[in-house]
């Protein structure tokens, strides 16, 4: 118990300085990458569609840990030397981008064709229809699956420990190495992840309620 209290500050600090920023930065960048990939796959010219499909295929088909190792330990052989944190940002962003692109593609397709037509009929161009009419509706459908990705990401950042990012899990490992108390330290780390995930689930619930208050569902239109 004593040890738990003593180490708590170190773990929380690692979480605050590395885990949370890594999660937030890569989620935002990954979401943008996912949006671009999804829109390319839905509306892009065939060569770009092929590039987007290839990207999703490779990232979804290979383990995240292996991807991180390729970026951090492999690329230096090609003369590309990255610090641990930027390497982690790149690895997680590519991963989040691939997974969210599939979600975004699905929710954009789920908006009825009639909504595009209604937008065009009042004179909107493609970009206006997309940003004003389609994406706002797609966004509310996307909250639950994107929250899933986000919560997975918080936990997956622990993989960054393997490429020397001193995040929460690595901080726990280091204390274990000096105290030989793996059970206490790893349970403590797990609890911190659990608290973070629970907080995010609550946020998801809030977002869903917010959206359902304003405007209701797509089904109401049919």
């Amino acid at each position, binding site marked *: 118990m004593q040890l738990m209290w003593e180490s708590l500050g170190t773990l929380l600090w690692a979480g605050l300085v590395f885990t949370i920023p890594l999660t937030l930065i890569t989620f935002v960048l990954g979401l943008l990458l996912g949006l671009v990939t999804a829109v390319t796959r839905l509306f892009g010219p065939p060569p770009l569609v092929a590039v987007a499909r290839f990207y999703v295929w490779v990232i979804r088909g290979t383990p995240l840990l292996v991807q991180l190792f390729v970026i951090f330990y492999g690329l230096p052989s090609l003369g590309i030397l990255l610090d641990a944190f930027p390497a982690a940002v790149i690895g997680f962003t590519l991963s989040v981008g691939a997974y969210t692109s599939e979600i975004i593609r699905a929710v954009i397709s789920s908006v*009825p064709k*009639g*909504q595009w*037509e*209604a*937008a*065009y*009929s*009042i*004179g*909107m*161009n493609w970009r*206006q229809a997309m940003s*004003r*009419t389609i994406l*706002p*509706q797609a966004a*509310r459908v996307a909250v639950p699956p994107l929250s899933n990705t986000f919560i997975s990401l918080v936990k997956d950042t622990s993989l960054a420990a393997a490429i020397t990012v001193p995040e929460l899990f690595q901080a726990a490992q280091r204390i274990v190495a000096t105290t030989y108390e793996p059970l206490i330290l790893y349970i403590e780390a797990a609890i911190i992840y659990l608290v973070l995930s629970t907080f995010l689930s609550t946020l998801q619930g809030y977002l869903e309620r917010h959206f359902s208050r*304003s*405007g*209701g*569902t*797509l089904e*109401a*239109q*049919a």
Partner: protein
Amino acid sequence: MIELQHIEKRFGENVILKDICLVIPEGTVTALVGPSGGGKSTLLRCINLLEIPTAGTIRIGDETATFQPGKKPAWQEIQKIRRQTGMVFQNFQLFPHQTAIGNVMEGLTTVLRWPADKARARAVELLTKVGMAHKMDAWPSTLSGGQQQRVAIARALAPSPRVLLCDEPTSALDPELAAEVVDVLGKLAKEGTTMVMATHDLRLASKIANNVVFLEAGNIVETGSSRNIFGAPAQERTKQFISTLNAGHSYDI
């Protein structure tokens, strides 16, 4: 005036519209009637270019666009015709994430770049006209079908189109709700709004339309005043179709 010259629409081998020529004078209401699959909706959607005609010429007011097989029209070309039109859909298609007034203001603020207060004033005026001013802050999902369609009519009218296109505006509504929509459209017709509507609703067509176009299998079978088409159609096929609309009802035409 709306002028359609030699409009043809094909989907692959399927010919949906064959050499349609039609002149619709300003200030009149034209009903497109005929069996399902006859081309009513497609013709209507060709007027605002939600469907691009395979061939033919469309003129609305001062704007003209000509179409040729295999040639994709430029976006500006499509926009200049589309800007002359407003459209009302069978399933309303209100934007569910915007309030009633938000729906009506959308085209004005996003497309025409009107300042919000000017757009709001115009929207209030139109919502009042369709009898929906009391619900202007309501979400579409909380409105009845008839109310949603009246808001959709206000939305279509907001940019002051030269012609209002209505695609089966009452067929998703029960008779009572349909009546509200017919009343609103009738009022607009009296004010001289040019309208073209595809409809199965005899009450709508007979009450509001000046002219009727009977379409079947992509051809115009007969055109005439609504009194003539509904009362004394010249073609046997028209007579037969009109009698099925009449079946079981007695309308005062």
